[in-house]
């Protein structure tokens, strides 16, 4: 029965997507029911799977396509980390999206592709080899495109075209790298500490070229500078899409891909022996600073958050590239921590826009009085991003910094300090305006938001607090990443 759980976890969104796509737009209750039931079921299944994986059960689902070409789903500790993140946030974002799109058009299309998007993420999480990873990675590109252009304006279509050009281009690089690696090494399964054997000694040049292709391929989705251009543009999408794209689906799929390539295809020792770790770390550092720097000058709230994502996702890459177990704990934990913080920020920002029509930093004056709940959630997310203890972001930065010292790279401390200062510089003005400035004269109270819009950001803000406070509990993101890192390094 080792195939049942991975299949069930995949089908709770892959099987649901066509059903929702076929429903007429008017079938609101049925669609919402199916959606929420599937999302809740998936969370329960993932919880079950986590329990089993923690107790050493292995899972396996294989489908052969040709000699040496196999679709393979499995579940290891790293999969569980990403699965837990996507399933919980999918449930919350679905609730939010149902409330957000109330009265909108093309909702069946929206929720169908939304499900397909999550199906791709769980496929990426459970992929057992590079081929399977590639299949779901490309599916993710196709599933998110209709979501980016959902509003249907010319601006949305332009952003969609650019998004497609970037991600399909990256997909080509990833495809070429994958085929090349298969031609060189046979089937590339994901195994802790890499699967390349003695190939690094015999053909180091080819492996270096393949590494560049693979990282460029996943780097587009992880928004590594200079491949990040699509991300701020795709902010034209509705708020739940931005939230899901930034916190879970797209950028995390990219970051997760970097982890798989470094840890489970090449192995940290090979990456270091080929001299590829330092350039990757440098690229991550550049992205961290560039993203933060660009965020400073954005007045549009969502665009500021988008550049912040560019910067924050690269903490994960940095943690991977520093080749130190301590930094790796920080980076992996940040996969989850950045997810819950960023989704809090986006959901709160969506509420500002829906409730009071506020979309820019300049208009944030007095938001603490106008929408105290959403403002509180936003504050927790922003302080977490800056790295204020005891919130989740502090834990990641602590381990990254300690890992930098461990790896003999004290510059990392300076980088983290600089980046935190920049984080503060672009987040604190928003908080200041929200809490300490009076609302503008003559502003009329906006519409009251229902529970579907209010509960999700409140929940994720609580998670941000909990992930920091309870960091040393066994099932916390941090506890789980310690477990993973012990497999990769010891």
């Amino acid at each position, binding site marked *: 029965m080792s195939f049942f759980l991975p299949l069930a976890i995949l089908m709770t969104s892959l099987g649901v997507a066509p059903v929702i796509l076929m429903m007429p737009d008017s079938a609101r209750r049925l669609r919402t029911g199916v959606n929420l039931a599937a999302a809740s079921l998936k969370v329960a299944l993932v919880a079950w799977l986590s329990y089993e994986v923690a107790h050493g059960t292995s899972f396996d689902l294989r*489908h*052969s*396509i*040709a*000699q040496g*070409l196999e*679709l393979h789903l499995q579940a290891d500790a790293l999969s569980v980390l990403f699965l837990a993140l996507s399933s919980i946030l999918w449930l919350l974002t679905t609730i939010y999206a149902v409330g957000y799109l109330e009265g909108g*058009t*093309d909702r069946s*299309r929206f929720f169908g592709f939304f499900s397909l998007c999550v199906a791709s993420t769980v496929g990426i999480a459970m992929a057992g080899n590079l081929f399977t990873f*590639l*299949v779901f990675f*490309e*599916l993710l590109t*196709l599933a998110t*495109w*209709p979501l980016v*252009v*959902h*509003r*249907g*304006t010319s601006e*949305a*279509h332009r952003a*969609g*075209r650019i998004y*497609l050009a970037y991600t*399909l*281009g990256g*997909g*080509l690089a990833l*495809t*070429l790298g994958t*085929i*090349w690696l*298969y*031609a060189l090494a046979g089937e590339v399964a994901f195994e802790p500490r890499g699967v390349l054997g003695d190939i690094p000694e015999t053909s180091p040049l080819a492996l270096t070229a393949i590494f560049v292709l693979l990282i460029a391929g996943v780097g587009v989705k992880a928004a590594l500078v200079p491949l990040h251009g699509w991300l701020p543009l795709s902010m034209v999408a509705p708020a739940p899409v931005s939230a899901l794209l930034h916190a879970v689906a797209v950028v995390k799929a990219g970051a997760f891909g970097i982890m798989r390539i470094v840890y489970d295809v090449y192995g940290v020792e090979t990456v270091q022996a080929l001299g590829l770790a330092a350039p990757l770390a440098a690229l991550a550092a550049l992205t961290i600073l560039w993203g933060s720097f660009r965020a400073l000058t954005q007045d549009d709230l969502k665009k500021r958050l988008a550049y912040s994502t560019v910067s924050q996702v690269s903490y994960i890459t940095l943690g991977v590239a520093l080749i130190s177990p301590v930094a790796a704990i920080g980076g992996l934990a940040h996969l989850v921590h950045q997810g819950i913080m960023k989704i809090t920020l986006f959901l709160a920002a969506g509420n500002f826009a829906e409730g009071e029509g506020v979309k820019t930093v300049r208009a944030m004056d007095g938001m603490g009085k106008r929408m105290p709940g959403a403002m509180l959630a936003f504050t927790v997310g922003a302080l977490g991003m800056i790295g204020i203890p005891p919130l989740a972001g502090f834990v990641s930065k602590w381990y990254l910094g300690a890992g930098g010292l461990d790896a003999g790279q004290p510059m990392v401390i300076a980088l983290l300090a600089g980046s935190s200062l920049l984080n503060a510089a672009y987040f604190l003005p928003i908080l200041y305006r929200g809490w300490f400035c009076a609302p503008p004269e003559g502003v009329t109270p906006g519409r009251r938001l229902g529970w579907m819009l209010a509960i999700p950001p409140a929940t994720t803000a609580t998670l941000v607090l909990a992930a920091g406070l309870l960091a040393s509990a066994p099932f916390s993101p941090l506890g789980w990443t310690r477990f993973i890192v012990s497999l990769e390094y010891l």
Partner: protein
Amino acid sequence: MSDISLIVLLPLLAAVLTAALPRQAAAIGTLATGLNAFLAANLGRQILHSGTVTEAIGDWTAPLGITFDANGLASVMLAMAAIVGLAVSLQAAAGPARAGFWPLWMATLGALNGLFLSSDLFNIYVAFEILGLAAVGLTALAGTRASLRAAFDYLTAGLVGSLLVLLGIALSYSVTGRVDMEAVAMLTQSDTGRIALALIAAGLVVKAALFPLHFWMPGAHSSAAPAASALLSALVVKGALYLVLRLSLEGGAGTEFLRNTLAVLGAGGMLWGAWNALRAERLKLLVAHSTVAQIGLIALAIGVAGNPLETGLWQAAALLMLSHALAKAAMFLAVGRIAEALGHDRISGLNREELRPGPAEFAFAIAAISLVGLPPTAGFIGKWFLIEGLIDKGGIHWIALILLGTALSAAYLSRVVSRCLRGGPHVSATARRPPWRTGDVAALGLATGALLLGLAAALPISLLETPFA
């Protein structure tokens, strides 16, 4: 009578019957297509089970007699024609009846089946002639000025192609004294033989609409009726491509000049077709130019496969043929439905405010995924084998060209698909959705089949691995 001769004779018999009984044509034609699919499936099962099945007609064996040779490759092609045929018949049977469609389509099917199974050059020539004439008829069927003109061009090109093939076969007979497939390997031994081979290849290039001899094709495929376009683009050009592959497999790839020419022309077609598709203003023309590009890709795959043919590379070519057939037929059927709902097929006019995207546009989008070759489609598996084989051979420039072609195909197809995703301010609140028609079911079924074929690629691959007799 065995299954092999039955699968050739049944459609030809149906052609006669549908011509004689025009009122019952749709029923007879659909029934024949169904039976044909059953026979093709059965033959495939036999081949999987016990290898290549050979039949010598009247028990006269080669080199004197005519043999039919049902190998794995032929069986994949038969299945391809059967599946596409089912969908097209479904659409045609439900649509407005056009006199002449059914006899022509049945003759096409019979000629294709005969072509796939023949192991004899002269027999192949006869099948080709029937195929060519029936295809011209299918083109002219729409009855518009444009389609008549296109049909005339098609006829001319087809005749030139046939003459070249016939000349080549006659020359090859004078060199080797036989017309069965054994002759092909002998041809590469002498100068005259190589000329014969080049003549046959040139004729096939015209018939396959390979760049730069594709001039007749976009016009023909874009002005015919949707069901006919689907048949022409998905199946008829595959007849010539199949033969190029078959001759290469039989030893015809022995001349390096021919192989290189094929690969270079293929690459040229891939880029030229894509470029024209990017600039096309009409949907049907875009799809037809995309066929030029896809034929180029397949020809490239056959051309680089080397001598003797490398398994991965020629199987890639066969998979690409199969995937293109399903996806392209789906696309033409979908375009037919879109044009029917809109009243035109201008790409800029796809954004009609009063019309929501319907099932046909969905089918188009799914078929596009196959044509670009994204996972999990069979097109993706085909490109995977192709690129993997080229990496092993060190053909990095070919890989670069294939990737460029892929990127261009994504670019021209997204022109259409992005309009299928219209919504928001571009659709008025009272916009209606086009109702479901049988044509939508056929298009959507084929498109989904092409999409999922990649997951089931193990089946065609194990068929292709059956050794030749």
